[in-house]
Every structure is written in C-alpha cells, then in structure tokens.
C-alpha cells in the first residue's frame, strides 16, 4: 500500500533521515514514534504526497509519488484520510460541513451522507457541536473533528499525526477504537504519536507494529512497548 524505497528527506540542509525502506501492507496497523523534531510529521507527509522524497522513491497504491501531477495527487488524497498535527479547517463553515468537505470536493454527496455524518459525529462526541464553527471548538474537539473528516470518505489508508495529543484518556480510547474498527474493515492505518500508553492499549486490540524514528533512520521497536 505504502512503500518507501531508500527514501531520504532534507529541508535544505542535512537530511532529516536517509535510506529508509519500508513496506506497509494493506490492512496493517502501524505506529510511528520518536522524539520531538525527529521527523515523524515529515515522514507522514511523504506518505500522502504533501512532500516528495529528496532521494529514493515513495510509492502509494503502487504509484510513484514523485511522478504524479498536481491533479493526480488530488485524486490520491481522496483515497487517503489525513489528520494533520495542527488541525486546520475552513473557519467559515460549520463543523458538520467541514467534516463532509471531502465528499463535496469529490462530488460524492449522496442521500446517505447525512446519516453517515450523524453517526460519525456521535462517534467522536461532537453531536452537540455540529453547527458550531471550528474556531469555537476546544483543542480536543478540533482533533476529533479532524479525525472524523479524515475517515468520512472511507479511505483505503488513514494517516493520523498525534490524533490524541489534546484529548483525555477516555476520549483517546474511544478514538483508538474507531481506528481499530477501520483497520478491521481492511483499512491501512498509520499513526504518529508520542503517547506510549496509547500504543500499549492498541497492541491489546490489534496486531500493531511500532516504528521508531531516531538517528536518521527507522527501526522496528521491540516487544518492550
């Protein structure tokens, strides 16, 4: 599903990481950890085509990210749900409209949309905030809305960057359950987080692998987690 082939990335100076080869198979569940500033967000951006590797190759759905035009990237994004670390929304639209935005952009608004949306809002606990505008949300509410937006298109891949950084333990368990459920439906899930307890909780529910980014490379973290 997502393959990195000797990929490297540099923001101009030294390479942040180099020579990374990875293969995330369809239906797999991965965590990405590492200290702040190690390059977790950067690696995720490579995986959904927001950045292109400075060396090597990244393939998503068997397509070389580096060879795609802007319109192709747009089409790829419709199959990849992304939760950004700083969850950005269209501030002039309601929460519900923001969550439904990927459907609108893809021209896929259908009769079932409203029900799906209602169910999803309940899942992330935002039913009472559906008509609010994003600037009126609390930090945790924004993260939940971003997750809802990422999954509404039922994408093949879900990529989330610190999706539980601002929510309490209970809520993080609930969000994890949503991601686990998506994984059970066959979606590929990739989550960057520094929350070790979240990883432990996940491991109890699915076969999750933990990738650790450090020293310009990625290692598979052992069973110690």
């Amino acid at each position, binding site marked *: 599903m997502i393959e990195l082939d000797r990929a490297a990335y540099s923001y101009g100076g030294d390479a942040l990481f180099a020579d990374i080869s990875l293969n995330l198979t369809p239906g797999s569940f991965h965590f990405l950890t590492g200290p702040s500033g190690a390059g977790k967000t950067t690696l995720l951006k490579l995986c959904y085509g*927001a950045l292109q590797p400075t060396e090597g190759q990244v393939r998503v759905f068997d397509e070389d990210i580096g060879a795609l035009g*802007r*319109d192709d990237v*747009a*089409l*790829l*994004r*419709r199959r990849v749900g*992304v939760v*950004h670390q700083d969850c*950005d*929304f*269209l*501030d*002039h*639209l309601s929460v519900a409209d923001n969550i439904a*935005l*990927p459907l*609108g*952009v*893809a021209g896929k*608004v259908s009769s079932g949309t409203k029900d799906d949306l209602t169910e999803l809002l309940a899942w992330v606990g935002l039913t009472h905030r559906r008509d609010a505008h994003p600037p009126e949300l609390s930090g945790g509410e924004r993260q939940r809305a971003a997750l809802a*937006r990422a999954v509404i*298109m039922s994408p093949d891949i879900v990529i989330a960057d610190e999706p539980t950084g601002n929510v309490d333990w209970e809520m993080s368990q609930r969000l994890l359950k949503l991601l686990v459920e998506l994984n059970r439906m066959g979606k590929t899930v990739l989550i960057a987080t520094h929350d070790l307890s979240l990883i432990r909780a996940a491991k109890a529910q699915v076969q999750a692998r933990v990738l650790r980014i450090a020293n310009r490379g990625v290692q598979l973290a052992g069973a110690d987690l």
Partner: protein
Amino acid sequence: MSVFSDLTSLLRSDAQSVQVVPPSGFTAQLTIFTAAAMAFLAVFALALSMASGRLATTWGDELARSSTLRIIAPQAEQPALTATAMRILESTAGVASARPLDAAEQQALLAPWFGTGVDLSTLPVPQLIEVIEAGTGFDSAGLRLRLEAEVPGAVLDDHRQWRAPLVAAANRLRTVGWVSALLLGLSVAAMVTLAANASLAANARVIAVLRLVGATDRYIAQAFIRRFTLRALGGAAGGTVLGMFVVRMLPAATDRAGFLTGLGFQGSEWLVPLTVPLLAAAVAFVATRLAAQRKLRELA
C-alpha cells in the same frame, strides 16, 4: 483547466465550490469599488472620444473642405473675372465644386456691417465663390499662382489653414479619450489581478485545507474566478449606469457653446458604454484565471 470549462462553470451556479472560499469582505468591496470607479471614468472617456470625434468630423467635412475665393474688382468687371475664375477652378485637381454666391447670400453675410436695407449693387462688394475641395484637397499655392495671372484682385481665403489645427486638436482629444479608456481597462486588469492575488494569498490556509481533502486546482480556482468576475461585472455595471446618467444630465449641445457642452452620446453611441461592464468582466475573468493558475502552482 480549459478556458471553456471555466466559462461554463462560471455560468452554472455551482454553490458548493464557491462556498468553500470564505467571503472576503474587504477585497470584495475593493474590487467592486474599483470596477465601478473605473467604469464611471471610462464612460466619460468614451463620451469625450465620441464628442471629439463628432467635432472633428463636423469641422473636417463642412468647414475644412470649403474655401472662399473673393474677387475684388469694380462691379462691371466682376462677371468676366468670375467666369474666368470658375473656369480655372473647374480645371483644378482636388476641387470638388465651385459656386458663386448670389446677391441674397452675399447680403446675408454683410448684414452685420451694413444692415439689411442696403442695396449691395451700390457698394464695391467683391464677388464671393465658395470652393469645396475633394479627396486630398487642392494645391492652394499653385491655385493662387494661376489666379494671380488671370484674375487680378482674386483672394483665396483658405479656411483649411484655420480649421486644420482645430480638427487636429479634436482628433488628438479623441485619441486621448480612447487611450484613457484603454488605460482604465488596464487599470481594472491590474487591480483585479492584485486583488485576486491578495485574496489567494490571504486564503493560503484555506487552499491548503482544500488540497488536503483532495480538491483539484480547477475546483479551487473556480471559486475565485467566479467571484472576481461577478464582482467586476457588478461594480462596472453600477459605475457605467451612474456615468451614463451623469453624462445624460450634462447640458445638451447648443449651436453656440457647441463643443464645451456637447460632451455626450448621440443615438446609437449610447450602446458603446454598455460594453464597459462586459469588457470589465472579461478582463477580470482573464486576470483572475491567470493569477489563480500562477498562485496555485506557487503554493503547491
């Protein structure tokens, strides 16, 4: 993205795509105001052009093309000299027609001097011949030489030397009018481009969000193009209507103060300013489209 599909989507009311860009109050007002102001001024520039054009045409046709030949001689000799002069004029290249004025016409011209009761035949009044030039005009120096030889006392009063600079000035004024209208069009293009760029730059975050959820460049550009085109159309329509109204309110041309008060449109000329809003919209469409394409490439 093809121009054609951009144009068609402009006409469809594609509410969804337009909604995703936040309504940007001040850039909107700025664009509308600019379009209105420019359209208002453009209407005046056009009125100036057309009035000057009419003036140039009038002077060019009626006056610049006519000259007067005066035959100053004792009454008895006048008929013979007039006949000779007419013969010379008829054989001169560039003279369309020549005609001796009759007594009544001459009397009318002299009335301010001698009143209407004077018998002209008692005065040594010269015979006047009206000469209308054709095409490129005649060679007045050559004509003068020939007249001097055969018609002593003939004075060629070439109005052209008086009128030519006036006609030239009117033509220049017409050019000033058209150039102003062109400059105003360019100003609209420049301002809409700047406003569209400002709007695109201010909405960089919005564009990033839209990209994140899989929006294509065309989808994003559409909203901006549609907006700025409609704003330019609306603003320019308002400015044009106001401009036409004010031009209409200007005092009508009279014989006496013809030029100064004649600034306006006549008959079908009123249709010309109506093209201003359409041109403004077209300019805005192209300007926004280019700005959006460039900016979206830049933000990629």
